């Protein structure tokens, strides 16, 4: 493990994951137009190949190279070989599987039952808003107001970029906002929780996490699939999976890489921020489609860039970038060293915890009695939120403020 700037790693992982996802979309379009035309058969066959490819990848990444080193460590430093999930891990993997299955099933239902599915797909971008709420309710580090502003800018930007012609079907919209987005939310949330679990001193690695959550999705999917999709189509999908195995396997390998990076990012930051940065995929998707459309005119369609839709897309891209820049503007971190008057400590700790922006309080033995670590959006807030509050608390005899200028963190 090397010492890295946490923020850089977090941003590169989330953005790289989004960029890979844009390539996955391009590969999907390629397969859909040149090889497998029926979206149901495509989806099911991709799923079958996906499970096989993921299991092969897990076994391949388990290969030992040198002493105490496996191949998978290059993808995720916390990978230490195959782990069979048990206890809490098993619980979260099943929950992730359920979420993913609900979301995939809603997708299949929408593409077969709803007219103009592409017109309602932009609403899947709103899942980031669900994650904001999730972060606010469950996370230790709650998103700050400015973070929420930036995230919503990205959500609306991504929404505008993906907007396309067609009528918005109310039932379809309800399905996207209900089961489909909720499923994705549950999927991401369970993955985040599982990632935070530590085995020995390492976090549960993203390789095992991705493979196991897909296996549980597959188990659920295969039990429900016969009720949703006619048997003939499933048999057909199996046949297609064998015929186009290399193409589908390539698609799934890129998907796998995208997910591994995404899950690693989840371990470092808030779900909503990861997903907002992942939205770079819709922006990157545009130039990729334009390049591919000029290279393979029959396969890829030029995105509509003239007229109203062009203007809307450009506005959307600007929104996404503005949001991302606003997000990346760093917060102010500081340490406050406190000397206390000799009296009841519990009361003082309780008062210190009430202060906004305090991450944690260390009670120490030394020249100072308490060391607070605080995080704020700006130094200007420091006075209002912290200095004034500290001077109000009875029991503090003296404190000093030390601003962090640059920080490295072991991850």
């Amino acid at each position, binding site marked *: 493990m090397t010492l890295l700037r946490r923020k850089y790693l977090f941003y590169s992982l989330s953005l790289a994951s989004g960029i890979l996802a844009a390539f996955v979309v391009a590969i999907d379009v390629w397969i859909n137009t040149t090889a497998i035309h029926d979206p149901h058969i495509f989806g099911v066959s991709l799923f079958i190949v996906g499970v096989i490819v993921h299991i092969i990848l897990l076994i391949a990444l388990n290969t030992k190279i040198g002493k105490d080193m496996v191949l998978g460590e290059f993808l995720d430093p916390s990978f230490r070989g195959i782990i069979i999930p048990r206890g809490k891990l098993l619980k979260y993997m099943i929950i992730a599987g359920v979420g993913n299955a609900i979301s995939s099933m809603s997708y299949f239902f929408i593409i077969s039952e709803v007219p103009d599915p592409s017109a309602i797909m932009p609403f899947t971008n709103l899942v980031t808003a669900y994650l904001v709420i999730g972060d606010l309710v469950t996370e230790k580090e709650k998103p700050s107001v400015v973070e929420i502003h930036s995230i919503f800018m990205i959500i609306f930007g991504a929404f505008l970029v993906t907007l396309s012609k067609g009528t918005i079907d109310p039932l379809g919209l309800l399905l996207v906002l209900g089961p489909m987005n909720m499923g994705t939310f549950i999927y991401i949330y369970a993955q985040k929780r599982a990632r935070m679990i530590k085995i020995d001193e390492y976090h549960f690695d993203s390789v095992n996490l991705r493979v196991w959550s897909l296996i549980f999705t597959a188990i659920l999917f295969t039990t429900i699939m016969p009720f949703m999709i006619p048997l003939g189509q499933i048999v057909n999908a199996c046949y297609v999976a064998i015929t186009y195995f290399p193409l589908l396997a390539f698609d799934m390998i890129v998907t796998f890489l995208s997910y591994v990076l995404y899950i690693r990012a989840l371990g470092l930051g808030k779900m909503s921020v990861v997903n907002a940065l992942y939205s770079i995929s819709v922006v990157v998707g545009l130039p990729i489609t334009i390049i591919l459309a000029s290279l393979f005119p029959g396969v890829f369609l030029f995105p509509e860039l003239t007229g109203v839709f062009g203007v809307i897309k450009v506005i959307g891209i600007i929104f996404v970038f503005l949001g991302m820049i606003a997000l990346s503007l760093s917060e102010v971190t500081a340490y406050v060293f406190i000397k206390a008057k000799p009296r009841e400590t519990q009361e003082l700790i*309780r008062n210190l915890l009430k202060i906004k922006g305090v991450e944690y309080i260390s009670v120490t033995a*030394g020249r100072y009695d308490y060391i607070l670590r605080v995080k704020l959006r700006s130094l200007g807030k420091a006075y209002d939120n912290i200095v004034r509050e500290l001077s109000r608390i009875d029991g503090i005899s003296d404190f000093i403020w030390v601003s962090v200028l640059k920080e490295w963190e072991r991850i």
Partner: protein
Amino acid sequence: MSDLNVFGCWDLPKVHAYILINVEVGKTSHVFNELTKIRQATHVSITAGEFDIIVRVTVDDLEELFLITEKVHRIDGIIKTVTHVVEKEIAKAEV
């Protein structure tokens, strides 16, 4: 600090400490880079205020902490260090 891990075993409680460092003018980057090489350092922060660098370390016991402070003292450019051992830690979410 201790918690049941996934295998149902107790993790041994770790010792956390802050090492507050004052550095000679012009030696900050050198000291910073040397400090990041210490395996037990979890945060290394360059700061403005009474101290120049704050290091947070996580160790198994006080013996290990002693070895680290010794290692820190050997770095060229450090004027003074103060070590604060954490007795108790409260994160905001736990209340």
